[in-house]
């Protein structure tokens, strides 16, 4: 199994013509050659095309520029380290941690807009938690989309993880309630709730989420202990709006960024962390369950700038 760094770099290599060429230590902007005005332009382009957004891009550019003013001999590798350090500083504390060893069932509600990868991620997490001995249970709270039940059902059958589901069109909160009762009865340590995709600006759908919370609290005042927003890594600045609204309406405890196995850099997560300080629990680097990996700010920053670990 490849590590986060290697996987992410694989993706980087596939990007032409910008990132890898630019940031690889062999030649390119961040290789051994000296920095000049045109490499700053290239750098600016690379940062924007990674979806870092205006604020982070300007911050990185400024730091490299000020280092350049002090030292005209600044080389590409040095600039890369400065860039990586800015990212590490901005992402300080962004690695999420959680504990499933409590006495009560820990409920994790998976939320997000349509097509972000909630169901697939739920299945991958279920597999992981099962292997770790937490005896997970899944609640199929997407009662809206055509065949959503079938999708999660097929996953759970494959993984041999128990599932609580109702019929299409049923009340999602009622499914959550029943799933909690079942999880408790079976001694599960963790209950994963796969909710329906909803765009964050649909008020009524956000209210439905709040109802899930209210109903769960009839079982346990603290449930759901976690609400994880699943974000598609190829989405741009709208990710920040998504995170902001989901957090405001539902109280998120962290993020999962999916689909980072393509050529997208998922730079929007930096903007989200800057603003909301929501930790990132996992990143999705491929289709296979083991491709869902814990997030490491240091690795992410190094991979982006081609700084070897």
């Amino acid at each position, binding site marked *: 199994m490849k590590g986060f760094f290697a996987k992410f770099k694989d*993706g980087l290599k*596939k*990007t032409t013509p910008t990132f890898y060429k630019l940031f690889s230590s062999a030649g390119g902007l961040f290789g051994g050659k000296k920095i000049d005005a045109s490499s700053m332009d290239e750098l*600016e*382009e690379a940062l*924007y*095309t*990674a*979806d870092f*957004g*205006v604020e982070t891009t300007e911050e990185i550019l400024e730091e490299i520029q000020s280092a350049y003013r002090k030292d005209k001999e600044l080389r590409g590798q040095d600039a890369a380290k400065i860039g990586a350090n800015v990212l590490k500083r901005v992402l300080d504390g962004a690695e999420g941690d959680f504990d499933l060893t409590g006495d009560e069932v820990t409920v994790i509600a998976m939320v997000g*807009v*349509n*097509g*972000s*990868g909630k169901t697939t991620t739920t299945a991958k997490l279920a597999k992981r938690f099962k292997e770790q001995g937490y005896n997970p249970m899944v609640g199929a709270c997407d009662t*809206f*989309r*055509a*065949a*959503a039940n*079938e*999708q999660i*059902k*097929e*996953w759970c059958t*494959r993984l041999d993880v128990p599932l609580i589901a109702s019929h299409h069109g049923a009340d999602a909160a009622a499914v959550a309630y029943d799933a909690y009762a079942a999880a408790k009865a079976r001694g599960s340590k963790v209950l994963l709730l796969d909710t329906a995709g909803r*765009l*964050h*600006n*649909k*008020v*009524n759908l956000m209210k439905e989420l709040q109802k899930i919370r209210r109903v769960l609290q009839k079982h346990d005042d603290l449930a759901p202990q976690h609400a994880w927003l699943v974000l*598609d890594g*190829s*989405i*741009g*600045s*709208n*990710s920040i*709006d998504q995170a902001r609204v989901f957090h405001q309406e539902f109280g998120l405890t962290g993020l999962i960024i999916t*689909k980072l*196995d*393509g*050529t*997208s850099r998922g*730079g*929007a997560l930096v903007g989200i962390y800057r603003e909301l300080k929501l930790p990132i629990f996992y990143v999705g680097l491929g289709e296979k369950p083991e491709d869902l990996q814990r997030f490491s700010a240091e690795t992410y920053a190094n991979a982006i700038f081609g700084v070897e670990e």
Partner: protein
Amino acid sequence: MLETLTDRLGTALRNIQGKGKLTEENMAESLQEVRKALLAADVHFRVARDFIKRVSEKSVGQEVTKAVNPGQMIVKIIHDELVNLLGEGTTELSTKKPLRVMMVGLQGSGKTTFTGKLALHLRKKGYTPALIACDVYRPAAIDQLETIARDNDFLFYCERDNKDVPQIGQRGWDWAKQQGADAILFDTAGRLQIDEALIEEVKLLRERVQPDESLLVADAALGQEAVNVAKTFNEAVPLNGIVLTKLDGDTRGGAALSMKAITDVPIKFLGTGEKVTDLEVFHPDRLAQRILGMGDVVSLVERAQEAVDEKEAMRMAEKLQRADFNFEDFLSQMKAMQRMGPLGSIVKMMPGMSGIEVGEKEEKKLKHTEALILSMTLKERRNPGILNGSRRARIAKGAGLEVRDLNALVKQFQQMKKMMKMMQGPKMEKMMKKMEKMQGKGGKGLPGGKNPFGDGAGLPGGLPDDLGSRLPGGKNPFDGMKF
């Protein structure tokens, strides 16, 4: 949050008003602002740069007289250029019969949902659609398409134990022809554009079924990645069109410009909801305004329609016409407004106001207003005239507020009523007609067509007076209405 583009350009260009012609030098600062706005809307870096160049070339040499605001002038040039670029090419689907359409795209972009929408659209045009399930990977993808087919009575073909996608496509096509279908839609699996094996599969499928239209289904909120996605898919499977999905979200949609500019593949449809009817043909001007953060009045009206029930709206319109409007109506309008979403997101849709933040303070003010009305008796709500000192003291106490808060509300309410009286008669009818025309379907319109909070109360600083002039071309759908 960004200020409105026009405002920022106005600042950047303040020195050149009345000073002859636009030059590269005097526009530099403002074009930098435009660039930032485009980048913030997720337009690709290079596309933004090239676009700015085009705008600069068009602008240089234009006269800036005292009469025009140079900011507005440049925004108009940008807007027109954007509409041109977005709208180039055939945005219509081929009218061939039989018609074969293949959907491709990344995972989660909305291909299956769109396939259902397109089938319905084609049936309305007289086709008999058949859906062929070519996604053999995602669990239950076949079930999803089958459910859509069953619910809408479309012909449906799948092979559950076969992984040979080109073969499924071929057999599905043969089967659909036998069944009398003349619009055959192939729903393929989501795939990364860099996944060579899966891209090869879609190429083989294409060779086998020879689609008349290959459509890339893409999330409108895609970031800079949009360029790679569109370019690589277009190289593998020459695309005939792009479909932007999830435009019912609040993304600015700059990805659309990136994809169009890089591939020159026309945008053909917009997905605007989860229901099978939520499909729109493409309007370049609406998307251009959205990318530039100029608000989206049409969406606002649509949201209002969703939130307000028709009878209630009719009743309200009548009341407004008679200027017979009391606190109960005020309350119910407020409720309707709340159903449309947080005030902040509504304000963002208004032209020229996308940069205005509606924060907690304004939301709180609304809550106070609601509390004050709720602590009135029904009689008081219906006859605000009876509010004497002791009643006022009681109401304020009941709402946990001061009497002066109530006084301010009553005053605001009276002003609103006065304004309604002014709007009575032919002027009002004209306005209602305008609202209907704007929606294009003679719908219900916003109840009374105006903000229920009186003259801009609750909005910081009220609505700007020059709303009309802020829209490119000076088209203001609220024209004739005084805020």
